[in-house]
Structure formats: structure tokens, C-alpha cells
């Protein structure tokens, strides 16, 4: 039987690991005493990455190598900068990474071998709305948004997981329903989720999910009119909330001129811009900057910190890495053999793409800032685990389509052989 060939890319992974090792090696000299822990950390992370790669290929030959390598690179940069900011957080991040990786493998295996995800749309819909609604009453407010919940002593951010659920639900509803009437339920779902997020002041997540839903509607149905109507509703909603909510108005004002309110609202953006400007093209150097001047330096504002220490050129490379991830994600979607998995994988790709655009664009003051994490890099367990789960979806779909394609090829070969025999 002929097999689908895949490019061997282990060399790239070694480069990534070497880069991260070098970074930690430099960091180990940063303090007054030599820091052996940094080396230990680096070795652990490096071994983990190599192991993940090997296991991934073991689960399926058709797993996408580039997606995992680029993700490794982003995660590695994240760990490096987190370690430099706060060693304890970095260790916690490593722990979340392990949890996330396990979940990634589980999701990958589920998608590859079962139709599990095709049946959970209704439960996910109900759970998502329920969790976000509960949050509205018992949620803990952090950074102006009420989006944290504490269960059994563990803090987490349900909206991160709702992202994946949201994509699964939409992919299911959009797979083979074309009539307008069929789309009413997913529309109600979208508006409920986005509405609740708006009320909880989690603007970043609201914008992200609304954008994702529009893109998924467009991809699945091709109804330009409907999507444009959606954009229109979004625009009206944006203008409306500008007049209704003071915090939205404040965001726009500080976007236009953060310096006018430097001592209050504009402080974060202004500090971020100064950090980027201080770094210049080549950066001040790892460990030499003053990242802690910026509020939320280790999650929402991590991009400014990276630019300060590694330089604008590295910042551009980081943007390029995300683009590579997005392009690979889209290729996985394009190669999918079933529409549901096509939509599912492209939905996850869209989340990663929009999320990076929203936060990087906000930090560099290209668009108004809405707080959201930078995928794979920001500190935070929920965000890291949710991103890895989406990675699991991408790899799972890649594995599934590869497998289906091979089976199909085998069938064709079999048919040809029988035909030959008959003849």
C-alpha cells in the first residue's frame, strides 16, 4: 500500500530547542549568583518538547509537524520571558503546560478515532451559557472584567474554555444546515454568549468570539449578505456600547491619545509604547529591560515586554510565527475530508489568529486595546490549556484526514486490483 509522505522536520525542532536553551543559559548568568535552576528548567522544557513531538508522531503519522514546532517556539519564548519575570510563575506555567499537553493528546485521539465531538454540541451549548451566566453572579473581578471563578481553590477563567466550546457548537450547526431557519439557534447562541461577555466587561473575549462567529458563518455558508449584516450589527453594537458604557468610551479615548490621561487610564498603553520604543530595533537585551512598569506585563502586555528586551525585529518575527501557525491551521482545514472537521479546525485557527491580532494590535496602538491573552505566550493556566486544547483539535483533524485519505487510497487500490482480477 502506498503511504502519504510527510516532510521530516525534526531538525527545525532541534533549532527551536537550541534557541530556548541558549536563552535560559543567558538568563542563568543574570542574577548575582549563578542560577542552576534555569538550566534545569530549560532541560525539562526541552525534553518535554522533544517527547511531545515523538508521542505526537506515535499517535498519528499524519499529525502536522509545523504546527507543533511553531507552537513549541511560542511556548518556549513564553517560558523564557516568564522565567525572567518571575521564576515561580514560570514553574507554575510549566505545570499547566504538562496538563495542557495531556489534554491535547486526549482531544487529538478523540478526534482521530471517534465521532465524539460531533455529538456534544447541545451539551456544550448549555454548559457554556450556564457557566458564563453563573460567572456573572459569583465571578471574581480582575482587571475590570468579571471573568474569574474559583473552584476547589483553583482559579480559572471559563471564557478561555468557552472559546473552544463555541467553535465546536458553531461547527456542528453549520455543517449541513443551509436554510435561514436552521441558523436561528446558532445565532441566538452567539448573541447570548457575546452579550453575557459584554455585560461581564470581558470586551476582548466578546470581540474575539463575535469575530470568530462571523468568519465561521461566512466560511460555512458563503452568505456575504448575512455576514455583512452581522458586521453591521457588530458596528452598531460597538457604537452603542461606546455611548452606553463609560469604560468603552474610555478605551477609545486612550487609544486616540494615551498621553492625555497618562496618570490614569492611558498609563498602560503609554508605558507599553515607551517599552517598545526603549527596546528599539534590537532590544535592550534579555533581563535588562524594566517590564514591571507596565500593568499586566506578564499576560496581556507580554508583547511589549518581548519587544523591549528582544527588539522590534523580534516582535515582527513573533507576528510571523503566528502567521505560520495560522497558515498551517488553514492548510489542515483545507485538507480535511469532512465539513464538520474542516469548520472545527478552521474555527480554532480563527480564534488563534484573531486573538493575536486583537492583543498585538492593541498593544502597538493600531486598534483600541481590549484585554486578552497572547496565545501560548501569556502567563495563565486557563489560556495555556485552552490554546493547547485547540492545538489538539488541529492535530486531531490533521491525523483524522490523513487516516481517512489513506483508507480511501487503500480502497481504491483494492478496487483496482479486483477489477484487474476480474478482467
Amino acid at each position, binding site marked *: 500500500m502506498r503511504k502519504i509522505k510527510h516532510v521530516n522536520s525534526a531538525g527545525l525542532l532541534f533549532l527551536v530547542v537550541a534557541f530556548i536553551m541558549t536563552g535560559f543559559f543567558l538568563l542563568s548568568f543574570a542574577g548575582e549568583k549563578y542560577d542552576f535552576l534555569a538550566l534545569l528548567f530549560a532541560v525539562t522544557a526541552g525534553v518535554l518538547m522533544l517527547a511531545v513531538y515523538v508521542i505526537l508522531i506515535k499517535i498519528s503519522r499524519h499529525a502536522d509537524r509545523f504546527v507543533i514546532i511553531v507552537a513549541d517556539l511560542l511556548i518556549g519564548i513564553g517560558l523564557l520571558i516568564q522565567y525572567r519575570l518571575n521564576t515561580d510563575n514560570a514553574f507554575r506555567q510549566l505545570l499547566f503546560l504538562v496538563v495542557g499537553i495531556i489534554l491535547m493528546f486526549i482531544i487529538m485521539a478523540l478526534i482521530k478515532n471517534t465521532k465524539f465531538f460531533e455529538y456534544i454540541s447541545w451539551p456544550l451549548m448549555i454548559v457554556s451559557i450556564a457557566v458564563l451566566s453563573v460567572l456573572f453572579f459569583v465571578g471574581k473581578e480582575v482587571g475590570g472584567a468579571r471573568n474569574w471563578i474559583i473552584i476547589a481553590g483553583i482559579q480559572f477563567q471559563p471564557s478561555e474554555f468557552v472559546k473552544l466550546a463555541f467553535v465546536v457548537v458553531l461547527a456542528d450547526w453549520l455543517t449541513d444546515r443551509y436554510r435561514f431557519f436552521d441558523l436561528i439557534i446558532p445565532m441566538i447562541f452567539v448573541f447570548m454568549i457575546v452579550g453575557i461577555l459584554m455585560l461581564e466587561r470581558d470586551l476582548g473575549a466578546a470581540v474575539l468570539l463575535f469575530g470568530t462567529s462571523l468568519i465561521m458563518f461566512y466560511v460555512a455558508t458563503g452568505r456575504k449578505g448575512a455576514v455583512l449584516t452581522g458586521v453591521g450589527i457588530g458596528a452598531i453594537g460597538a457604537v452603542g456600547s461606546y455611548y452606553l458604557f463609560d469604560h468603552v468610551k474610555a478605551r477609545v479615548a486612550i487609544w486616540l491619545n494615551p498621553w492625555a490621561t497618562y496618570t490614569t487610564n492611558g498609563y498602560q498603553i503609554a508605558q507599553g509604547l515607551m517599552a517598545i520604543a526603549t527596546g528599539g*530595533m534590537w532590544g535592550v537585551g534579555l533581563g535588562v529591560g524594566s517590564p514591571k512598569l507596565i500593568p499586566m506585563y506578564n499576560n496581556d502586555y507580554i508583547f511589549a515586554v518581548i519587544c523591549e528586551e528582544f527588539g522590534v525585529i523580534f516582535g515582527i518575527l513573533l507576528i510571523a510565527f503566528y502567521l505560520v501557525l495560522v497558515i498551517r491551521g488553514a492548510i489542515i482545514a483545507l485538507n480535511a475530508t469532512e465539513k464538520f472537521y474542516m469548520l472545527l479546525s478552521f474555527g480554532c485557527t480563527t480564534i488563534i489568529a484573531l486573538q493575536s491580532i486583537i492583543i498585538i494590535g492593541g498593544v502597538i496602538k493600531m486598534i483600541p486595546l481590549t484585554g486578552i491573552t497572547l496565545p501560548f505566550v501569556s502567563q495563565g493556566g486557563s489560556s495555556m490549556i485552552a490554546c493547547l486544547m485547540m492545538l489538539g483539535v488541529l492535530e486531531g483533524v490533521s491525523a483524522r484526514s490523513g487516516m481517512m485519505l489513506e483508507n480511501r487510497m487503500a480502497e481504491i487500490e483494492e478496487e483496482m486490483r479486483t477489477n484487474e482480477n476480474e478482467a
Partner: protein
Amino acid sequence: MKTKRNIKTVLILFCVLFVSMSVYLVYTVSVYGTRYFTSPYNTRTEKISNRVEAGKILDRNEKTLAYTSDGEREYSDSKTTRLATAHVLGDDMGQTIGAQSMFARYLLGFDQSVLDMILHPDSTLKGSNVELTIDSKLCRDIYELMEDHKGAVVITNYKTGEILASVSTPSFDPKKIKDYLDGDYELEDGALVNRATMGVYTPGSTFKIVTIVAALRYLPNVTEREFDCTGPLVFDKDTGKFRNGLTYSELTDDEKLDYVYLTDYKNETHGTMTLKEAFASSCNVTFARLAMEIGSSRLMKVAEELGVNKEFLFEEIMVNAGKMETGNSDYRLAWAGVGQHKDVMTPLHMCLLTGAVANNGTMMEPKLLNSVKTASGTQKHSLKAETYKQAIKPYEAEIIKEYMIEAVKHGTGTEAKISGVTVGGKTGSAEVSSNKETGTHAWFTGFIDSNKYPFAICVVCERAGTGGSVAAPIAKKALEMAMERLA
């Protein structure tokens, strides 16, 4: 399949967004980077300055103006030099923005490569030395020339854009800024403001340079026309509408209360004259009529081309641009056309504009940085003249230059004449209060028409009297000193 096509479409959209993000990042850092970095809010430089020995600041003759010794920032021994160069240098406590903060990148060694930083342990890091384009002796002489006047003097080389001298009075002693912050050292009001670059003054008649550019551009044959100045122009009090038929002298005393007027200095009348004579004698009535004939939008368009209402983003120096509003009535437009109403200009902006007139209409980007040398002596940056923009068309510049020379030869600026060279200029006496007892801002902006001494100057003395009698003599002496020192 349709879905696949749609996915490709969205993917292209993502690519465009990611690429534009990269472009915007580079744009924002290259255009605004220096501003953000030198912002007084940016305390990152302070952190560095604790462990880096900041480099020296020298003038164009390599005279040391600021240096670091035992971790303390020290300045010139001469008090007058310290006061004369204080605003150009700025202080080291973040109270003012000058060379010390604009060039902190070099002074604190931010320009050093990553390799340098790794090879040199923290403590031995030394910043680069920065050489400025100013001549500190010239600044000192000009500072003494200003005596008790509040105001500013700027001299630039209009061919290269170099700032040769920039003095702002009253000044402060950078050595004592810590005492000032502790409350032990008194400063005169507004002493920390660099009036040369940040001081927004009503420009008065010097603004006629802007109006005449617009007149030359939009009014055909304006140079061949004759103008009548028969006393104040009359406007409706409520609507501000121009009453062309009415003559001030023919109004009865009662009627006079019903109108508002555009007057000349001390209500002079100039009779019939050409545009050249009107410019040289600085006739408000003629220029107000021109402004109304040009119209609000066209006047504004020309002013904006000359930098008014714009944001200057020069690499090496922060300069406030002038501002102008033409308002919604003839009356306001008329006054705006002669540099009153809400018009304001900074001395350096006016100096750049005058320099452009002398330099065939080309405005050069102002330069303050002569060279940067690292502690080990490698040159990292050297002066390069750069065109900011072709602000005025060459033939217009030619005409205005001739008129400005005429203004110094036979007009309001005769006090600025220098024997041996041709000086051109424009005076201004800007009214800043309805109280006639308060003196006007005295302005003189001019240039030497010479290849050997391509100097442009702008002098402003606050509430000191007329431009012709107060500012022009100072300009003359300052230019003579510049010729002597910088030949």
C-alpha cells in the same frame, strides 16, 4: 468546494492583517520611537543611568557643557554658559526636555549592540559622547545681549538646518535643579520652559510672511497691483462682516460705536503703495484685505503647508508648531491674516520659515546633533543636512526674499542692517492685551543673504515694545557675533 474557497479568502484576509500589523509596528517605532523614548514619563532611562556613566555633551567646538563625574552630572564652570545653554541641554531630573533626554539613547549607551552589553558587565558600561551643533560662546553672548528681556533667540544655518544658537530667557541653572525640586532654589516664572521651541507667541506682522505666500500663490498679478490704505477697515460689530463702503474717518462718533475695526499700528495710514511697499512698511490694512481676498480655506491651506497646525516630528529636537484659526467672519479672518486673532508661532518655527524663504523655499530639518562618539572613540553618527520639505515655491521665495531685504533697507527693519552683507527680515509688534499700556511682543525674523553666512534668526522679546526698535537691534548684534564666530 465553496467552503474551501471561503477559507482561502479568509486566510488572505489574515495575511493582510498580520502584515499590516508588522508594518504599523515598524512605522510607529520609526516615526514616534524617539518621542516615546524621550518622554519624561519614561523612567527606564533613569534606571539605566544608575548603572551607566552618561556620556559628555559638547558644543560644536568640543567645549564640554555637561559630563559625569563620580556618578554626579556636572555642567560648565561658567554660570552664564550654564544659563545660556540650559534649555538646549535640559536637566537631568526630568523637568525639561533637552539634549540630555532627546539623546539619552546615546548618552546612556542604548545604542550599543547586544554583543557590547554581554561582553561588558554592568558596572563598566559607559555612554557615548554627544557633540551638539550649537556654539556655546555664541549662546552666552546672546544671553547677555537679552539683558532683562524675557523671550528667545534662535539662529540656524538655513542651508544645513544646524541650530547654531538657541537661548531662552529667563533661564535656570541645571546644577541647582535638585535644590529647586527641594524648594531651596527659586526660579523665575516659566524659567523651565524652552521659549525658543515651545513658547507659543502671537506673531503679529511676522505672520505676514505666511499671508504673502498665499497671496502670491492665489492672486494673479498681485505684485503689480496698487493698494490704498486710507485708515482702519470697518466691520459689523455683531456679524463681523466687512463693510467695504464705510470709511472710518467719515463716521460720526456715535456711529463709531456700532462697528469694530482693523487698524494699523497707532492708526497710521500708508496711502497708495505696491505690495512690496506694503510688506516693507507692514501695512495691516493691505494684508487684511489680501487675507479676505484669498479666503479662509486657501489661507489655511497655505499656512498648513508651512507647518502651521501641524505636528513637527523632527528627529533631534521637539518643536511646537504654530497654530491658526481663521474663524467664521471677515473680521476674524482679517486679523488672522495679520498675525493676530488666535494665531501663535514658536520662535524656532518662525526661524525655519524665514530660513526657507532665504533657501529658495526649501525648509531644512533642524539639526542639533553634530556627532556621536562612543567612549572608545568610534564615531557613530555624523551631521547630514536633510530637506524637511519644499515649503514655498522657488519663485515665491525669490519675491518674498526681495521684499524682506527691502523691509530692512527702507522699511520697518532698518535697525537690523549690517554693513558688508545683505540682511532681509520682517518685524512684528504683536498686541497681546486690549490694554494699550502693555507693551507688544517684539519680533524680528530674518536672514543674511550670503553663501558664506547662511544664517537665519528669530528674536522674540515679550511685551518689550515694537519689533523694529527692540528686536531688530538684538538680531543685528547677534548676527554680527555669529558671523564673527562661525565664518
